[in-house]
């Protein structure tokens, strides 16, 4: 049943093996004697050679050979005698060759050859010829490929020539991923150095796309070409880091309210914000995680605000110093107490001024944001926030909003001036054309056959296309492929069930992007909270419930949201929500959150007042099954603020619910729902009431 029956060796064979083994044993003991006594005679060398030819793994003998070479080269008759030196080194090369014939995966043998070569005695041609022989026999042997890279570097063989070699290897067998890999390594060098014939990058990559297409079309089921294609795609969509959105958005007129009443009712949900302290959060969102956002890289111009006193914090808890979103607070003074005062705020990010992404790419374009903030006159009677009713998330509490509130330029977050002062205009024409071509080819391929990796590639291409388009001028923005991408992922879920979760996550991201980047669709998901007497919340709610989302994304388009309903989805993590700094009410009930640690991103939301985490799976599993493809799975810093001595809690209580403690201790919630979780019992409720002094409503009941 388990494969072939094992054939017992015949008596003759057994005898032969035994003789061989005893020979080897005697060789070994002879060798060790010579080695330990530092004998490097012809006879001794012969013994070591025989030993290595039958067992190339015997690394001690390789080192002995090195010592012998050194020793013999230093003999008096070896002085400057080219012939003599050559004969010694040739002997070594010969031995390595024989040893490799026996076992061409021997680390020791390959390493010895490198050592001999670095002595400077071998012809390049001979080495390459030998390599060709070995690589023909085993084209995936990584020792041979490593040795090849070593030889070509040592002998200064141009990368162009090596590139030709990979071409030949690929023509010979296009499944040879080692050849494709080496191609990517060589091309990366050539492109980086802008070698002759390899600049501009665009032309080279276009040719590569054509080249790999042959392989893909010849056999779409073969993995190698597709993985190389992925590398090409990466080179095509890798752009300079950009500022993709901000809050407040560019060009808006914002009203800051002290008491929640916005004067007349023509305020917009996007541009009104209530603040008790005359402060306004300013959020910058980049296309990649960046570091070094500070007063010297970001200039903020506004009367009464001293730019270099602003403190920027990263909206990510991973402690690496990199984050996609960065936050600072603008403080407006109270001096104009009697009339509304409008402030002009200008934010400038100069090109490549010390802002770097985690992949080392600098901030590519200068960006400029400008907006107005109206600060109303100071009212003496503050609204007492504690006297508010509870918020109900039921369907009846909401009604459709009036369309007039939607200001198109605000829904469109890419409304961002990128001033191109001294630089040539960066357009992505080549990138877009290339992606378009690839999309066409991919579709053509899929029209003739059903291919898993082809579908995945097409989905990725379409996503890349939409992202690139969003960076260009506004006019093309309506072209998007969300429906098609969703269809592709649906097919993939059926074709490749082991990777179901991966595809589901991708689907969620596409779906969200589809809704949020389309004004009409977005409107359908916006509701107004019916109870206008509740001044606490901006009564404009984004409802993204019941969408089967397993992951959230497109956060750059959601910076304005203050009330968010994500209930009845499949969320296992809230990662991404940390950038929604205006969020005051959040409903994530009826999801799949498995532990309090899944709420980690909420710790950074200082304005959060109302939170519904009821009917999740907190405490139900021993394993926290949050998604795995997060941008930064390593957040070791989150415990930094833990100061047990400040805690008034009893150790034992905290120890039982340390996760809950870590999340809630920094929040100032007024209303919280935890009912319907495995963990929600009286004990945790008591802890929460203690932890949250401002809490008024717990699970719908007044708790003070």
């Amino acid at each position: 049943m388990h494969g072939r029956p094992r054939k017992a060796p015949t008596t003759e064979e057994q005898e032969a093996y035994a003789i061989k083994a005893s020979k080897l044993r005697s060789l070994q003991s002879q060798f060790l004697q010579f080695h330990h006594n530092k004998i490097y005679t012809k006879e001794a060398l012969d013994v070591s050679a025989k030993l290595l030819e039958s067992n190339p793994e015997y690394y001690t003998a390789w080192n002995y050979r090195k010592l012998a070479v050194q020793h013999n080269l230093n003999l008096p008759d070896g002085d400057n005698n080219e012939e003599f030196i050559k004969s010694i080194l040739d002997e070594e090369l010969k031995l390595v060759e024989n040893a490799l014939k026996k076992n061409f995966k021997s680390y020791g043998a390959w390493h010895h050859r490198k050592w001999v070569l670095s002595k400077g005695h071998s012809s390049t041609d001979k080495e390459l010829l030998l390599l060709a022989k070995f690589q023909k026999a085993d084209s995936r042997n990584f020792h041979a490929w490593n040795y090849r890279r070593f030889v070509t570097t040592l002998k200064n063989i141009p990368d162009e020539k090596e590139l030709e070699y990979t071409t030949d290897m690929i023509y010979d067998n296009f499944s040879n991923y080692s050849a494709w890999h080496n191609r990517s390594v060589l091309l990366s060098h050539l492109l980086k150095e802008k070698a002759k014939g390899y600049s501009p990058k665009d032309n080279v990559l276009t040719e590569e796309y054509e080249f790999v297409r042959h392989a893909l079309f010849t056999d779409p089921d073969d993995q190698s070409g597709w993985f190389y294609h992925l590398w090409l795609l990466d080179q095509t969509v890798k752009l300079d880091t950009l500022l993709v959105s901000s809050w407040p958005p560019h060009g808006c007129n914002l009203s800051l309210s002290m008491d929640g009443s916005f004067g007349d009712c023509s305020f917009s949900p996007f541009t009104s914000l209530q603040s008790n302290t005359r402060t306004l959060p300013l959020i910058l969102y980049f296309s990649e995680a960046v570091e070094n956002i500070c007063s010297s890289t970001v200039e903020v111009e506004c009367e009464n605000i001293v730019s270099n006193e602003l403190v920027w914090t990263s909206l990510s808890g991973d402690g690496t110093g990199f984050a996609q979103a960065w936050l600072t607070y603008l403080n407006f003074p109270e001096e104009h107490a009697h009339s509304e005062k409008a402030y002009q705020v200008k934010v400038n990010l100069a090109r490549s001024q010390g802002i770097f992404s985690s992949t080392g790419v600098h901030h590519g374009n200068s960006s400029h944001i400008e907006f107005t903030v109206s600060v109303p006159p100071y009212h003496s009677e503050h609204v007492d926030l504690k006297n508010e009713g509870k918020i109900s998330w039921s369907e009846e509490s909401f009604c459709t909003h009036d369309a007039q509130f939607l200001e198109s330029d605000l829904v469109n977050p890419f409304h961002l001036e990128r001033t191109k002062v001294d630089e040539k205009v960066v357009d992505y024409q080549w990138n877009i054309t290339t992606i378009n071509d690839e999309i066409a080819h991919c579709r053509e391929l899929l029209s003739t056959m059903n291919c898993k990796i082809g579908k995945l590639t097409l989905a990725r291409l379409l996503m890349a296309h939409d992202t690139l388009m969003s960076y260009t001028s506004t006019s093309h923005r309506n072209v998007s492929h969300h429906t098609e991408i969703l269809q592709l992922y649906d097919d993939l879920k059926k074709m490749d069930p082991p990777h179901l979760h991966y595809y589901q996550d991708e689907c969620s991201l596409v779906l969200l992007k589809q809704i949020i980047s389309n004004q009409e669709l977005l409107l359908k998901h916006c509701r107004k909270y019916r109870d206008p007497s509740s001044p606490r919340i901006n009564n404009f709610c984004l409802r993204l419930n019941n969408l089967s989302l397993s992951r959230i994304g497109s956060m750059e388009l959601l910076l304005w949201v203050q009330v968010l309903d994500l209930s009845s989805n499949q969320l296992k993590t809230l990662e991404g929500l940390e950038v929604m700094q205006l969020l005051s009410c959040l409903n994530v009930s009826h999801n799949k959150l498995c532990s309090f640690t899944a709420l980690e991103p909420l710790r950074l939301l200082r304005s959060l007042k109302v939170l519904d985490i009821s009917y999740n799976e907190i405490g139900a599993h021993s394993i926290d099954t949050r998604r795995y493809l997060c941008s930064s799975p390593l957040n070791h810093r989150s415990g930094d603020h833990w100061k047990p001595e400040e805690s008034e809690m009893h150790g034992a209580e905290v120890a039982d619910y340390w996760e809950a403690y870590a999340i809630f201790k920094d929040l100032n919630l007024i209303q919280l729902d935890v009912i319907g979780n495995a963990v929600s019992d009286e004990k945790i409720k008591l802890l929460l009431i203690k932890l949250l002094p401002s809490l008024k409503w717990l699970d719908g009941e007044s708790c003070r």
Partner: protein
Amino acid sequence: MESRRVTKTLEDQRMVERQVRGIYDYFYSIPPNSQSVILELQRDKHFDFLTRGLRKLGPLFSVLDANRPWLCYWILHSITLLGESVDAGLENDSIDFLTRCQDKDGGYAGGPGQMPHLATTYAAVNSLITLGSPKALSSINRCTSYSMFLLVPYLSFTPVNIDLMMYREKLHAFLLRMKDPSGGFRMHDGGELDVRACYTAISVASILNIVDDELIHGVGNFILSCQTYEGGIAGEPGAEAHGGYTFCGLAAMILINEVNRLDLPRLIDWVVFRQGVEGGFQGRTNKLVDGCYSFWQGAVAFLIQRLNLVVHEQLGLSNDLGTESDDSSESELSDEEEHLEGTSSHVQEICPPQEGQENASDTTKIADTGYEFINRPIAMQPLYDSMYLQQYVLLCSQVDGGFRDKPGKGRDHYHTCYCLSGLSIAQYSWTDEADSPPLPRDVFGLYSRNLVEQIHPLFNIELDRYYEARKYFSCL
């Protein structure tokens, strides 16, 4: 290339798929009773095959003459995973043999009289820890130096511990000698520089509790330079991502506490697509499935499960809060240990790295990473189909005594070791806490027959043996 044709690579791939499908089709066509018989882990036969290997190897094994501690490790580790142990005679022989491989200046060689080598040092140290007895652990460098008599009045250590202290100093010196100015390690004096060497050096240093700044300096940079655009890690810069090296690189980065420097999302993308339609893993893109990658790739996925956002540092702290006394008595080992548990993770996690810190305090941060790591909660589901992997190992790699690469290949001790280690990884990939057994639903086949022992995923040592060793070496 224009015409549609099938390459040799793809032909081979299809053939393997056909063979595997044949096995699976047959398996699913028979009644459940018979299925569980076929699925059964054939403990007795494996045990026979393994112990025979330790007693006497056929002459065909002479090519492994420079790798004899590896044979010891593969066999002893496999036996331990089956929940068995070797008899006293074999144990003594193994200890004697390994002792003879030990170099007078530190490190273990592939065989007596050969040069010390990092890989065989790793294998020898892991073998001795797997044997686990005080004799095994103290065997390490048996020089009965007179200096121990000088030390006895000042310390309450047993002579064994003094041996070990000296041994460890020598081993430490050996590791330092293997260090390349680039930050990486060489396998042996004048040997090759690669990620394997980094892992074996760091693993040995970590488990023997002799890690220091000098050893880890620059290791992270070297490993980082080996991560490829695919996301996996290669043996040396410029080479292709590979399952074995990816495990070595990732484990070493975790042990030196620099794992967040790797591009982990990419690494995840790479490793999840290495599990093939057969259920097993391939080692590199477009290569055939191979049972030994059940461990190398499976362990990568297993390690990633524990690299998480969770505020695990608080676990250490809640221990502290729970512990009433701050008794620092030195007499009892258990106290010593409890103390160590609480404080090491405390020191390590609560203080953010500060510049200009003393070396000593930096070292405490990495001193017990291996222990702290397995006590981290799992943050995510397994990144691969753990049942499907078990199916491949049991149905396609298992033979009557031993395991093999894939159907059609012969068994050997290497594949037996790494198939069993991979099986363990897969069975325990849903368990949240170190030390707790998996649920029956997570073990393919009959639970009572098929469940193997748990391993420490960073060292690939059976977990209880690891605890023993940690206790032993942490009090030196």
